């Protein structure tokens, strides 16, 4: 370099172009794949929407009548799972971030992450062989003593393969994801806020109430939504544990339960043929759209939160 180059811009070598081009292509492939998921599912769903509904399994009067129990069961089981998982996850997240001694906190986090590492089919096997038989006495007691309450109306399931059992297993499965996000958010609380609260004489719980929870509220909401999305799409546990019927019911302890979209696909897809395959794919498309919306909103909330968390 004896002569001064006229332009201060870096020389663009062919290798540079190739490399940066490759990275752009890789990124675009991801976006294309997501679009392809929607397009291909849609393309294969159309036959089920236009066909005479009598050809579908169970001969419903319309496609939407076919979908309604599935959609209801999916949302109902995921909602029950979230109802159980959220308070427990909040407790664990607070325990790890603000209560446990700092030295063991990380280890406790690993232990909870272990739950996330267990494959869903193993959870299914555990749910059907261990949890379901063990929980039957509780259901019998509930139906005998609280049968007047619509959620526990008799008859009781003799096998324990009810939607409540499914929801319990789903709750265990989504606890790690909710806990992980809540923990991150709680740890981001400005230390000065916490110390200020403690210095004014607040107990630890009052400090959490005043400093940690208000700061973490958007994070908690999106963590709950991500957990909900995971519970909506969970397949194997539902396929193995639930004893499904085609109806819409709120009853938690009966042997007739609303099926879920994902569980229904897993149970029927291997033997399905003709237009029933398209019907299953159409329900899959509905599941995809529901989870996509929930995840997008949750991520939007988290990302907006990231921008102003410059407090720490």
């Amino acid at each position, binding site marked *: 370099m004896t002569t001064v180059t006229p332009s201060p811009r*870096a020389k663009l*070598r062919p*290798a540079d172009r190739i*490399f940066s081009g*490759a990275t*752009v292509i*890789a*990124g675009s492939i*991801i976006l294309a794949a*997501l679009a*392809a*998921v929607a397009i*291909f599912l849609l*393309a*294969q769903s159309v036959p089920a929407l236009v066909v005479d509904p009598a050809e579908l399994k169970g001969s419903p009067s319309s496609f939407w009548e076919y979908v309604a129990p599935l959609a209801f069961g999916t949302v109902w089981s995921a909602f029950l799972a979230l109802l159980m998982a959220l*308070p427990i996850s*909040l*407790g*664990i997240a607070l*325990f790890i971030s603000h209560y446990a001694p700092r030295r063991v906190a990380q280890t406790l986090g690993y232990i909870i*992450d*272990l*739950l996330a*590492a*267990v*494959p869903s*089919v*193993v959870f299914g*096997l*555990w749910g059907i062989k*261990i949890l379901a038989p063990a929980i039957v006495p509780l259901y019998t007691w509930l139906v005998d003593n609280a049968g007047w309450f619509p959620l526990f109306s008799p008859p009781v399931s003799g096998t324990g393969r009810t939607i409540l059992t499914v929801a319990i297993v789903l709750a265990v499965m989504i*606890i790690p994801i909710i*806990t992980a996000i809540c923990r991150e958010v709680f740890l981001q609380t400005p230390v000065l806020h916490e110390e200020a609260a403690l210095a004014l004489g607040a*107990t*630890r*719980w*009052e400090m959490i109430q005043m400093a940690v929870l208000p700061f973490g509220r958007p994070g908690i909401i999106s963590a709950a939504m*991500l957990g909900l*999305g*995971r519970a*909506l*799409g969970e*397949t194997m546990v539902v*396929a*193995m544990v639930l004893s499904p019927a085609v109806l819409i019911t709120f009853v938690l302890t009966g042997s007739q339960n609303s099926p879920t979209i*994902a569980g229904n*696909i*897993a149970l029927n*897809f*291997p033997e399905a043929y003709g237009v029933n*395959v398209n019907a299953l*794919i159409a329900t899959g498309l509905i599941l*995809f759209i529901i*989870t*996509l919306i*929930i*995840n*997008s909103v949750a*991520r939007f909330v988290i*990302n907006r939160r990231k921008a102003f968390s410059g407090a720490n």
Partner: protein
Amino acid sequence: MTATTAPTEGIVNSLTSGRLPKWAPWALLGGSWLAMGVLFGLMAAATESDFNPVLALFVGTVLFDVLIFIVAYLVEGIRQAKNRLVTSLVMTAFIIALLPLVSLLATVLINGLPRFDIVYFTESMRNVVGEGGGALHAIIGTLEMTGMATLISVPIGLLTSIYLVEYGTGTLAKAITFFVDVMTGIPSIVAGLFAFTFFALITGDPGIRFGFGGAVALSLLMVPVVVRSSEEMLKLVPNELREASYALGVPKWLTILKIVIPTSIAGITTGITLAIARVIGETAPLLIIAGYTTSMNYDLFSDRMMSLPVFVYNQYANPGSDVQPYLDRAWAGALTLILIVMALNLVARLIARIFSPKLGR
């Protein structure tokens, strides 16, 4: 304890009066567990049923939550009582989450060990009815499909994360970041359905089942995990390293290949290992697109291919007339899966701990 408390005997400390001593919560917790253990033990003896230690532990913990609130309210007042109640509730939540984990690991270990033998790892299920047989065909299938999924997703995921950290600034980068996050929440069965519709339309076979489709479905689930973890790791590389390299006249692509990636390779490997651990247990997509078989199949591009999770599901769901051998195989498969996943997690953490560069953080 008496030796250390002796000097302050007789002196009333106004700061600690009206407070519960430090051992009180622990004594209450132990007492509650003991009381419930005795109560449930007596009930079990009276009704001649099995003693359920898990239930006793759980009810004992709940009893402790109530007791600590009452005791603290009487001695310390409502604010401290609330504080102690929340502290104990938070610990209870942790214990509640541990119960299923411990129960699951224990049952998988107990039920899985009887068939965790040589035959299980050296034979397939071809022509096996009832006892015997193994999961070799499923293990081979899992290894091939997960390996193929890794081959697809690592280049795409790594290049995308490089784009996000080193090149991307505009709308495309923002869109990719957002949709990668959204993709982490795609239900696994939808990934399987996508692979099925995609290959069914391309090949024109409406009932297509083959291993490569399974690999594509798995990589759809794996790519976002790889992108996120690699992106975090690339961001940790100090800018000074890049600037030093540019100052020496090294082109950008060589800087990335020779400086940025070697610095963060430990973290990237950890992320990839965790991503493999995440998809190796996926059942639903492989059930849809790879199907199940009882024979060995080494060819990813033709015929049905068994995988370990589907093997577990299939052994449970379609047993023969004598159920027990099928269940034993299912539990042994579950044990194998858990061991594989735990080993991958352990390896990932070890890589992260041993090879990570010492950054002043």
